[in-house]
């Protein structure tokens, strides 16, 4: 057990070093909560440009299991976000790479990239946020965008006059 824990730590250190050397443009920051505990990271995700998420920043809680990288890390949004596949209250993310499509090729950084891309390509047919999905499915793009914008302004620090100047 200790050897595997050491292996997990080693890989995480490598990932961290790799991220620091070559930061992920989707992220504002990515780091373990403390240097002692490498299995708990906090990431800050940038809103995708050209979308109502633009200008917002979301904290994501990343928990790494003991048999990483064989099992996917657990990720959830700490900052509330309005998205059909992300739970409004718990921040749970419905994404297949976080479940059965996980493979050790993925890193924490690349997984966060897939979450970043989930923001632009929501899948309203398997919703965790039923209301957002319903608005999107009804074809009310304007309403959906303004809903997302409102949440981004309220919680994610998007400037309220963003994009109007």
């Amino acid at each position, binding site marked *: 057990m200790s050897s595997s824990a050491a*292996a997990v730590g*080693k*890989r995480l250190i*490598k*990932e961290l070093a*790799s991220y620091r*050397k*070559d930061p992920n*443009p*989707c992220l504002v920051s990515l780091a373990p909560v403390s240097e002692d505990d490498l299995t708990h990271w906090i990431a800050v995700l940038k809103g995708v*440009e050209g979308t109502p998420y633009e200008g917002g920043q979301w904290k994501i809680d990343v928990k790494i299991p003991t*048999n990483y*990288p*064989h099992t996917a890390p657990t990720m959830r949004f700490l900052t509330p976000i309005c998205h059909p*596949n992300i739970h409004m209250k718990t921040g749970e993310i*419905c*994404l*297949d*790479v976080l*479940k*059965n*499509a996980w*493979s*050790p*090729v*993925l*890193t924490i950084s*690349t*997984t966060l*990239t*897939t*979450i*970043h*891309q*989930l923001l632009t*390509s*929501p*899948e309203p047919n*398997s919703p965790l946020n039923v209301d957002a999905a319903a608005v999107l499915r009804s074809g009310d793009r304007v309403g959906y965008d303004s809903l997302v914008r409102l949440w981004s302004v309220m919680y994610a620090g998007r400037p309220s006059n963003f994009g109007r100047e």
Partner: protein
Amino acid sequence: MSNLRAVSQPRRASGELASSTTTAVDSSTSQTDIPTSLIQLSPRVSRTPEPVQKEIIHEEEEKRCWICYTSDAEEEAPKSDWKSPCRCTLIAHESCLLEWIADLQRSENNNSGGKISCPQCKTQIRLKQKRSMVLEVVEGAGRAVGKAVPVLILAGVGSVVFVACTVYGVNTIYAVCGPEYANRVLLGPDSEFSWTWRLGIGLPLIPFVLVASRARTFESALPVLPLIFFCHSDPLYISFPPSPAITLALLPYLRVSYNSLWNRFIGPYEEQWIKDVTPAYALENSEQRENEQRRPENVNAPRERRAENGQREEAAGGWDGEVRLENHNIIVQGSNITNMILGALLWPSVARIVGENVLGKWPKAWGGDVVRKCLPEGVVRNVVGGLIAVVLKDFISLYCKYKRAQQFRTRKVMDYSEVKKEKAKAAAAATSRR
């Protein structure tokens, strides 16, 4: 839960990213790859090309395991062989790969049929391992059993139904025929039980035939059945006190002629009485629907059938179902079906009760001897009893329909002043009685 469409794109991109950052074999392609993929992801980030290039050159020199992320340049790298099991550029330590494969096989051995493929290029990763006949046979058997489970469950349920139907069939034969004749039918002339195909198919078919005989759909097919099942032991002979076999064989024909007589002579009245108690709007609806359903060959069939169903399947409450049919189609049909099935399955017992207790004990003073002389066999008496029960039921329900229609035609709404008068009268009567 899984989010396939949303993810297919991201995964491709992340895979690209992973492969190009972790392992770069051909420097020229990866140099062009990385910046484009990054630019796709985020056009705004301005990145100077130099550090990227430097990193790639740096990475190109070292091998890096895609599972543990250690490269061979490091001192603490695990002492294991490098393996490149697939088409793409991913390479890994053999020990890391083996552990990953073991983990996959433990968690989802049924998902991919035991095949392991590279997470990026989907090439199947092949393992060289000692073959063991025993292991393969046992695993194959296990898989076969797993696949066979639904079939086995179905077979189990089927055989339970079969046994239940057979038991019901035996009970019915004993009820209708009485023990003596039943033994003759079931055991054959030498009283030795042998499981013939006639019994194997015929006994469990009994409840189905009884239920089917209530539905009009099978009317033309049913008369054939007795020929199959009664032609073996008793030769059919026609005599006046009819033999049991011929009575049972004649039953379907009797039924058909009874039904057609009923439709011919009583059907029109019955229909009229049903109409009398049906609100006008419901009638209109049903007429409309009939027009839609009407086929060239049988213009009046639906109306007739409904009228008959009402009379057959619901004793006194038949009219009720007719009215509601328009709005609560499914519910009424459901109760009709259960009524029909229950009635069909209870018929043998009713036949026996009537045959034994009424016909068998008919008082001598009222011609009981003549009855018993004409119908000497218990079986025939039971069958005749069942027929009488059916006819009685039909006529009672018909009478109820008639009465109901009469009631509807003559009833009036009371004015409230009348109601008050009646109440006052009743109160006066009560006080005077005291």
